[in-house]
């Protein structure tokens, strides 16, 4: 299996090189995207095959890399879950890109980086030593950075690219430190060696904190999320889908690999920061999604929310595991993994929808869209499934993972630590708040883009998107529905990975009542998405049929009523800003929202202006002080550039003495 997987990864990297050679060929984009899609499908086979056959972990070593180490590659159940996730997301994005890529003005700015990006992500998942992991991680970061810069002439894209580069660099540096600490002074960079070594509690805490910062910056944890809502939307939509749907999950994998596998048992208190940061990320992410006016940026903010939900689940799993409750840890971890998979499905779908709208209208701003359900009915239908899934409505897939997570939260009184007992219900409340805010956010997203009347000429003249894109979106929508009504299969599929991480699993779901989700025995509750769907469909369908049959089926089209004063101007509709107003007001302190009204002086007939500003607290309380400190330090250190040669020599001598003294004391 591992050989097959590595071959696919290397093929994807080779495809990148081929793409540079194919510049100018008219069929290049179809060839590259088509082969990427096929390779990703093969990845699904490898991943799902490993999980289904319960294959043992397999590894191999190729003599590239550090001379004494080479590159270890490794495929176990945990990698396999994420390889499957990557395969599905990558195949859908590539199939979508076959159609979407036709509209690109400069395809050679995307093509050489795209398959390599996929390949690098596979290698991160397969890495069996710290060196391979970090190298692939860095390639993944750099190639995605290049993809973000596709439309590099736009000023904001360049800013986004810069911010991304800084944050990615910071993240990799922190990961480097984390793995350095894990490897210890002996330099055992092989994962097997790290796993075998004993780590002191202080070291484990430090490593976990570094992983939170390093992997968290890539995943978008608050307050390291600031790059995500600008960089993800700047890329072409299929790349946005990959970055949001898949790359953030690769970061989750990195965290899981260290926290659950390499680090060994950790103290319970270390789950607290994971849970707290996760819950805060969930709420802050979706709050900002609620007030933003740019379709793709809304989706990026919602990615931050979902990452927060996943990390909360991981934190709960850590807490349960450290208190020796493996079955409950398995419940929380299953919720987290399932949510990662679900989020990949619906977020990729929604980014593709945003891309289709962008192609049809050229607009991302919600306030220039509207009424697209008439012009793009198929896209609108698939988008509706996507928003229903992401707002966790039964019977779709988003609800299943949220339900499992709530059940895990409800088991927290069993935890022995009073601190956690107080924390977890509050976190449950925050998660519920995030879920409700997500509903408001996506009613606004769908309602303003697809419903109502067109707010611009381009929206009025939009046309349906191409067949490749529709097929890719349709596939993902179908998976959203299937994963929602029959979640048991996915849970059974993931069970080996859960077992690997926490040493237990939730009961086998695919038994007699295969359509019902029955988590661990402690929960004493069940949920059947399949039956809910059947009930809703039958009762809704039967009533509709009866009403049409027995009552009246007459229908007349007339102008809108609107209380007798319909206004012909589409501007009078509720738009992105006005829909967000109640929530913006209620949550103003959290959003840093300020409203300004500028009135003209008396007698002046010009219009008054109403402005709204929101401010991310992370900038004010985290980044601005940091930037100020760096500026202060650099201006002070600037003096060092203008010294005489004697002083420089003194400095060199002084630092040499200092280092040698330090070394002596150390020894």
């Amino acid at each position, binding site marked *: 299996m591992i050989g097959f997987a590595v071959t696919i990864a290397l093929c994807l990297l080779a495809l990148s090189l081929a793409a540079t050679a194919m510049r100018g060929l008219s069929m290049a984009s179809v060839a590259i995207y088509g082969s990427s899609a096929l390779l990703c499908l093969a990845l699904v086979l490898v991943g799902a095959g490993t999980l289904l056959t319960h294959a043992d972990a397999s590894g191999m070593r190729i003599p590239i890399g550090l001379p004494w180490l080479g590159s270890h590659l490794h495929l176990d159940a945990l990698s396999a879950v994420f390889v499957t996730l990557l395969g599905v997301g990558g195949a859908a994005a590539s199939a979508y890109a076959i159609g979407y890529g036709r509209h690109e003005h400069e395809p050679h700015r995307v093509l050489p980086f795209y398959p390599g990006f996929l390949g690098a992500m596979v290698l991160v998942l397969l890495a069996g030593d710290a060196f391979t992991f970090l190298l692939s991680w860095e390639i993944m970061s750099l190639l995605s950075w290049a993809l973000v810069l596709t439309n590099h002439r736009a000023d904001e894209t360049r800013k986004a690219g810069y911010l991304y580069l800084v944050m990615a660099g910071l993240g990799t540096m922190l990961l480097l430190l984390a793995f350095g600490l894990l490897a210890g002074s002996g330099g055992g960079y092989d994962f097997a060696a790290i796993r075998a070594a004993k780590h002191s509690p202080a070291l484990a805490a430090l490593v976990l904190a570094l992983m939170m910062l390093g992997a968290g910056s890539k995943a978008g944890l608050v307050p390291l999320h600031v790059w995500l809502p600008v960089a993800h939307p700047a890329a072409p939509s299929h790349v946005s889908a990959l970055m949001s749907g898949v790359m953030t999950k690769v970061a989750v994998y990195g965290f899981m690999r260290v926290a659950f596998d390499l680090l060994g048992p950790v103290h319970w208190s270390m789950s607290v920061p994971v849970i707290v940061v996760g819950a805060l990320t969930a709420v802050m992410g979706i709050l900002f999604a609620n007030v933003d006016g740019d379709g793709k940026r809304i989706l990026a903010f919602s990615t931050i929310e979902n990452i927060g939900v996943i990390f909360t689940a991981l934190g709960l799993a850590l807490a349960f595991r450290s208190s020796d409750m493996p079955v409950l840890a398995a419940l929380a971890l299953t919720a987290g993994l399932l949510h990662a998979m679900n989020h990949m499905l619906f977020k990729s779908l929604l980014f593709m929808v945003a891309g289709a709208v962008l192609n049809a209208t050229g607009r991302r701003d919600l306030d220039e869209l509207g009424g697209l359900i008439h012009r793009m009915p198929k896209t609108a239908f698939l988008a509706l499934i996507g928003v229903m899934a992401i707002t966790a409505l039964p019977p779709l897939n988003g609800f299943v993972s949220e339900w499992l997570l709530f059940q895990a939260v409800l088991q927290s009184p069993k935890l022995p630590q009073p601190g956690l007992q107080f924390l977890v219900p509050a976190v449950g409340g925050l998660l519920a708040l995030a879920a409700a805010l997500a509903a408001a956010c996506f*009613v606004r997203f769908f309602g303003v883009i697809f419903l109502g009347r067109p707010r611009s000429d381009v929206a009025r003249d939009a046309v349906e998107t191409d067949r490749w894109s529709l097929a890719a979106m349709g596939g993902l929508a179908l998976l959203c529905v299937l994963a929602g009504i029959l979640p048991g299969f996915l849970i059974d599929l993931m069970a080996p990975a859960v077992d690997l991480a926490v040493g237990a699993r939730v009961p086998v779901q695919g038994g007699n009542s295969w359509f019902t989700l029955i988590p661990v025995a402690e929960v004493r*509750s069940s*949920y*059947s998405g399949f039956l809910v769907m059947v009930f809703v469909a039958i009762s809704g369908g039967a009533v509709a049929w009866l009403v049409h049959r027995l009552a009246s089926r007459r229908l007349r089209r007339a102008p809108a*009523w609107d209380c007798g004063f319909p206004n012909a101007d*589409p501007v009078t509709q*509720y738009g992105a800003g006005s829909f967000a107003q*109640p929530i913006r007001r209620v949550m103003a302190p959290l959003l840093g929202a300020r409203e300004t009204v500028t009135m003209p002086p008396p007698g002046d007939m010009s219009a008054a202006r109403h402005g709204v500003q929101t401010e991310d607290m992370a900038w004010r309380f985290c980044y601005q002080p940091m930037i100020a400190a760096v500026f202060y330090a650099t201006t002070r250190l600037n003096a060092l550039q203008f010294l005489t040669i004697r002083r420089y020599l003194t400095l060199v001598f002084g630092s040499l003495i200092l280092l040698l003294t330090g070394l002596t004391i150390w020894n």
Partner: protein
Amino acid sequence: MELIENIVLQALQMLVVLTLAPGLTGLVRKIKARLTRRRGASVLQPYRDLARLMRKEVVLAENASWLFRVSPYMIFAATWVAAALVPTFAIGLHFSWTADLIAIVALLGSARFFIALAGMDVGTSFGGIGSSREMMIGTLAEPAMLLVAFSVALVAGSTELSNVVAFMASGDVGIRVSMGMALIALTIVAIAENARIPVDNPATHLELTMVHEAMVLEYSGRHLAMIELAASLKLLLYVALIGCVFVPWGIAPANAGLDGLIAGLLLFLAKLVALGFLLAVFETSIAKMRVFRVPDFLGVALMLGLLGTLLLFVSRSL
């Protein structure tokens, strides 16, 4: 044989909630009218309204999409299924394990989702104002409701309503502070969710403070009938929920005989009348709030829900 019996019972439950729902709405209206010294329409008036609306033709706005026409049935179906999963006269029904309290909340969330989308479909300013305010109210009411569900689940050890009711009726519960808080929180949520005074006024039309009515302004004929029926069902659902969790006595246990079922049904009717009366008294004794006071009102529910849950984490006997 047992399966058939179970299915019949479940179908009976669905029919009971469906037939009683407009009656409850009519009853509350009647009592409110009597309390304000009006004679009021008959309790049966909502049934007549529904029949009239069903017979009328639908006048559809010119740019209404298919979503606008499908939504009433979706809203109705989601609410009906949710209402059918709340124990009314019997527990242990065959399909009660299909969805627990969290799923019932989520089903109501689906109904809200579709009604808010329908409000935005025609592209009028009234529809938008209703949708955006409804979502704001939902943003606060839903977490409060889930926290109530948490406290109840922590006491009863399950989120499955049949299990909850069986535990509550067993008499091991006693009087608990946390359950008192949960009751107040649930009542506030129920008032907000059902667009009752002081959050919204079900009797008003053409007012800038309206929320529910603003969303459904463009609906007519059979579509409006479905939405009105769904609104009645939602009221019945919340009344039944408060009844079954906090006044669980008399609900027929699983495998009860025919007389047990009949007694359960009669007691359920009595509970409906009593709680409907309380609702009417509450509504007539309070004034409508400004929209931006509603978050404070719902904030109380949120805090009580959280406090109740926290108390239970401190001690399971509080």
